[in-house]
């Protein structure tokens, strides 16, 4: 195989892996949008908050330590333990569920039947609140997240692919981060779980019913408020998974919340209401931007990766606004 082809292959594979990471974030948006028609601007911050909480719990940080120390003049920052990753993940999950419950109780409950734009504004407020709250609770410094996911390239893969290249070429083997592979597997499992849940459980069916028709769902005795708590909890769980993967990749820091912006073109591409759409959209964006960077980048001075996704989204908005997998509105007269 020629090195050029191997480069191409490597780029596609890396693109797919990045795409999966985008999909993870987009998934959270889709879940909430489907069930409540709310575009949750805070999804990215939720991922950040989940990652912060996870690291905090794991390393035994005292929550609100700065605040406590400032008020009481004490000086303690650490509980002095290290929790196993598994326990910390469960703990974070509990925190996200409590968060979903409180958000419903304090905000959504009072906004039932309001315009979507008002709910959207509420999520913007939530985003800023959660960002500040996360800082207050766990501190604003950059943290490393390590729950034992393997990372770095694989020597085995490099060796194997180097042999594929033609004799005497200067190809040094394929670099694929193990972390990305794990993320891809996790995403696949997550999507399968979500699909099984929504297809084959009574609660899943109720979620889909609510997504279709709020009023009718209420009329058959489905409590919207409980459903919203469930949906936001699931979105919190997805945010946690996304937070773990991104956090392990690039550290837990504020910019983590900006990945939400990358999810936007993914959603436009895949359709706001489709779980498979979020996945496929993410993959297309991931591969597309890496390929564009490799082949078109040199002609325009690079950095295509940063804006390519938005151009694709724009084109899609012009020609297929409901996205690849967006539900067409079924209407009968």
């Amino acid at each position, binding site marked *: 195989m020629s090195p050029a082809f191997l480069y191409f292959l490597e780029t596609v594979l890396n693109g797919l892996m990045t795409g999966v990471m985008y999909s993870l974030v987009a998934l959270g948006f889709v879940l909430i949008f489907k069930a409540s028609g709310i575009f949750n601007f805070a999804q990215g911050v939720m991922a950040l908050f989940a990652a912060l909480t996870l690291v905090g719990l794991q390393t035994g940080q005292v929550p609100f330590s700065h605040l406590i120390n400032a008020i009481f003049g004490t000086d303690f920052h650490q509980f002095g333990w290290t929790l196993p990753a598994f326990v910390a993940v469960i703990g974070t999950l509990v925190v996200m569920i409590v968060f979903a419950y409180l958000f419903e109780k304090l905000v959504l409950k009072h906004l*039932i*039947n309001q315009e979507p734009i008002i709910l959207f504004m509420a999520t913007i407020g939530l985003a800023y609140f959660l960002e500040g709250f996360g800082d207050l609770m766990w501190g604003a410094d950059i943290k490393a997240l390590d729950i034992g996911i393997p990372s770095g390239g694989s020597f085995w893969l490099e060796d194997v692919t180097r042999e594929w290249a033609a004799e005497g070429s200067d190809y040094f083997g394929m670099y694929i981060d193990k972390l990305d592979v794990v993320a891809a597997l996790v995403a696949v499992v997550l999507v399968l779980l979500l699909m099984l849940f929504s297809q084959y459980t*009574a609660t899943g*069916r*109720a979620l*889909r*019913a609510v*997504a*279709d*028709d*709020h*009023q*009718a*769902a*209420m*009329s*058959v*005795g*489905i*409590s*919207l408020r409980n459903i919203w708590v469930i949906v936001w909890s699931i979105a919190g769980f997805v945010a946690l998974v996304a937070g773990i993967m991104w956090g392990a990749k690039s550290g837990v820091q504020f910019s983590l919340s900006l990945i939400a912006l990358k999810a936007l073109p993914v959603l436009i591409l895949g359709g706001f209401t489709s779980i498979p759409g979020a996945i496929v959209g993410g993959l297309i964006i991931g591969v597309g931007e890496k390929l564009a960077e490799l082949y078109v980048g040199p002609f325009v001075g690079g950095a295509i990766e940063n804006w390519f996704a938005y151009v694709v989204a724009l084109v899609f908005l012009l020609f297929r606004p409901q996205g690849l997998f967006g*539900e067409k509105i*079924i*209407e*009968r007269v």
Partner: protein
Amino acid sequence: MTDAALATKEAEAILSVNNIEVIYNHVILVLKGVSLSVPRGGIVALLGANGAGKTTTLKAISNLLRAERGEVTKGGIEFDGEQVEASSPSDLVRRGCIQVMEGRHCFGHLTIEENLMTGAFTRRDGAANVRRDLEMVYDYFPRLKERRGSMAGYTSGGEQQMTAIGRALMSRPKMVLLDEPSMGLAPQLVEEIFEIVKKLNEEQGVSLLLAEQNTNIALRYAKYGYILESGRVVMDGEAKSLRENEDVKEFYLGIGGEGRRSFKNVKHYKRRKRWLA
């Protein structure tokens, strides 16, 4: 109705609405003191023109009103011996009072069978019982069984109406609030659906409160009727006596007392005066 009959009717009422007032958005007064009662196992029709307050009355009972920023500000609603104005819709469904909404409101992206199963959401009596009731619904609506796998959004209006009624039955209701089941359906289909509803009432003992604009058919199937106008009950009585009432004939059944006549000659004030006197 004799006094004694009236007394037993009161005693056996599964639903009684006492002088309720409904306000939307804190300002718009929609119901101005509506009272009605439905005997256990009876079919009662709630009649009236567009905007008379039929749907609002039903929603006040099922408490779907609150999601539309409406509120019962006066009066009380008693279902099955308990005051229910403060209960949530899901609570009411659990107690056995469910509404079939106007315009069918099926879950378009769910299959017919999934639609029916959502009706059993509040039940906690086991999958076997739910399964049995699903078969029962299919017995009443054989057409749904044929189409059990189709997306509800792609089925016909009649099938959707059947789905909506079947879905309500899946909650094992004691009482169904049926809002405008005839809307937008062919007369033949309307007849078919009313026949099934009557059968349900006779065989399952489900009490029914039926809001209808189609006065003719509603009074044929109901035993008692209330006529609403601008948020008030202006007339009520046995279905038979309503059918023979001159005013009902003229305004709701379209049969003039003295043969055909031009509406040019009908003075508007006469109508109003007579109803609201």
